[in-house]
């Protein structure tokens, strides 16, 4: 099972929202060709798992339609909006939705951890507490809120990870 070019673009955008450039890690995932990685996993996985992965990709790609009420795909919206969409999906009240998106995040994590630089960074303890990075909550200004019926509370009101 092969992914089309537009699906690869969706995958790149979705993975980039999870592991973006210019964050507290050495680099983003985009430079690691995560879409190609996904395509390889889809191609080498058993049929049922391949279909599940592809379905997840389509769900994430088209989520802006119902979460942001905008006729755009994940690749066509701003990076901060992509992050918001993924946060909402992971906190979705629909079990299958949040589980599939967590599985997608897990796949991205496996790819990202293949970077020696990122791996070394993540597994190194900081020697002094003051060198710890303050955890930033992503500002939601400028991002359309999802209808209340689709999710409850903010991205951390519920967990799926």
């Amino acid at each position, binding site marked *: 099972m092969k992914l089309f070019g537009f699906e690869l673009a969706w995958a790149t955008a979705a993975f980039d*929202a999870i592991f973006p450039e210019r*964050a507290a890690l050495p680099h983003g995932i985009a430079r690691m060709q995560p879409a190609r990685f996904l395509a390889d996993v889809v191609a080498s*996985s058993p*049929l049922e798992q391949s279909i599940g992965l592809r379905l997840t990709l389509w769900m994430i790609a088209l989520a802006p339609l119902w979460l942001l009420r905008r006729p755009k795909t994940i690749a066509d919206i701003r990076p901060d909006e992509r992050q918001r969409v993924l*946060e909402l999906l992971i*906190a979705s009240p629909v079990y299958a939705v949040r589980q599939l998106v967590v599985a997608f995040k897990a796949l991205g994590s496996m790819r990202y*951890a293949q970077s020696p630089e990122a791996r070394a960074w993540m597994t190194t303890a900081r020697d002094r507490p003051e060198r*710890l*990075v303050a955890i930033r909550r*992503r500002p939601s200004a400028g991002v359309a809120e999802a209808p209340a019926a689709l999710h409850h509370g903010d991205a951390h009101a519920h967990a799926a990870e």
Partner: protein
Amino acid sequence: MRTPQSDARHFPDDDLPEGSVVDGEQIASSVGESFDVVVIGSGAAGAVAAHALASAGFHVGIVEEGPWLKTRDVRDDVHSTFERVMRLHGMQVLQGRAFMPMLQGRCVGGSTLVNSAIAWRAPEDVIDDWGARFGLSGTITTRALEPHYAALERDLSVREVPPEALGENNRLFIEQARKHGIEAGPMHRYDRGCTGSGMCITACPSAAKQGMSVTYVPWALRSGRARIFTSCRVEYVDIRGGRAAAVVGCSHTGQRVELHARHAVIVAASTVQTPNILRRSGVRAAALGEHFQAHPGLALGGLFDRPINMAFGATQGAESIHFRKSDRFKLETISLPPDLAAARIPGVGTELADRLSQLGHVAVWAAQVRAEAEGTVREGWGGVDRVRYTMTENDMRAARKACALIARMLFEAGAREVWPGVYGVPSVLRAIDEVKLLEEAPLEPRSYSFIATHLFGAARMGRDPSRSVVDPDFRVHGAAGLYVVDSSVFPTNLGVNPQHTIMAMSRLAAHRLAERIDRRHAA
């Protein structure tokens, strides 16, 4: 990413006798051979049985569905390992009210290649229960198992995690548990020189972990009386005239592999695969595929100001069975590599990156529930293994209590954030007062992120053929020469890690079989 090792160290899975390994990825034509005994599976159960029988002088053929990942080829990233050695690349799930990932090794050594090598003898109350409820007293007893446990402990160097390999994640857990009045201590593991690489999940890079692919399998092959056929999937056991006569399978290259058994076929393919192999072989028993049980596990992360450094220390090095009887759960530590931790850490984007950049300050503690739930194992369309399983409300109460307890312990140990991973509860708890939210969390399997690693039943043992699949001598009811020795014969789950008991039961079965064959020859 670490590349395969090119150093000069010698590992136990190097330099095996010529011809002792038949690689199913290289087989170019059909294979037909005869052995005294054919063993299906090379995990904890199969490897031990094969070694015991080879040591007793029998010629043994081992059939393994997966490849052999040699120590020299071990990599430290999860994806590369899982893709090669895990069933369905690690994407297998139990299906029921919730989906529960189910990790099974599919390689030489089976799950012993990728587990934490934790050794626990079966609790006496469990063995007594088997005796009382399933008629096994007199055959499966603590006394009968004792010499086998002892032999395994000698062979595989069972020892407590040494202080120099404990690591902070484990040390802190023990300290905190004891402050709570909870009995806890370092684990006992199959370990010959652990250096605390924290890589048990992706296979040990130094062969210090005494998994089957660096112990009993190579030992059996070196005896000169065993051969292993890797990357060969068993289709069925050929039962002729009521006796198991051969194992029929297919190599990765599509070639037929037929191994004839002069005395016996031993099925040790795991709780999920064994029932389906028996079914494809024509075994019809009402209990086949029923009574599947597990130890669903869940883990909570805590973010500390001070370094924890999970990357160093035994992957799983500390535990407590304090609540095993009273609340049916066991507490453990587990050091998650970044590949897996990233998926469990709350947030995406900058927030996830912030937390991941502090992974060196994260501790992960876990619980496994001795769930009372029973499920079924079937074969789905296209030969896919299907396991249906849903935890009961009692199981969920145990899980919820364990979650709240771990969260409280993490906060008391100094965590500034705790990540419970329970839907319906904030994904980030920032104060110990918030633990009460976990105590009131939904009793809904879909709210939790369980993972199933310990699997039992589905071909269980008993005297009554209408309620069991194998008899107390591990023989399949009504099929001469066909034995099952893996955890599918366990009448119930254990409440502790099962590898040690799987191996002890298998060793017991192999010794009894060897004696039986010898007696028959003598007669």
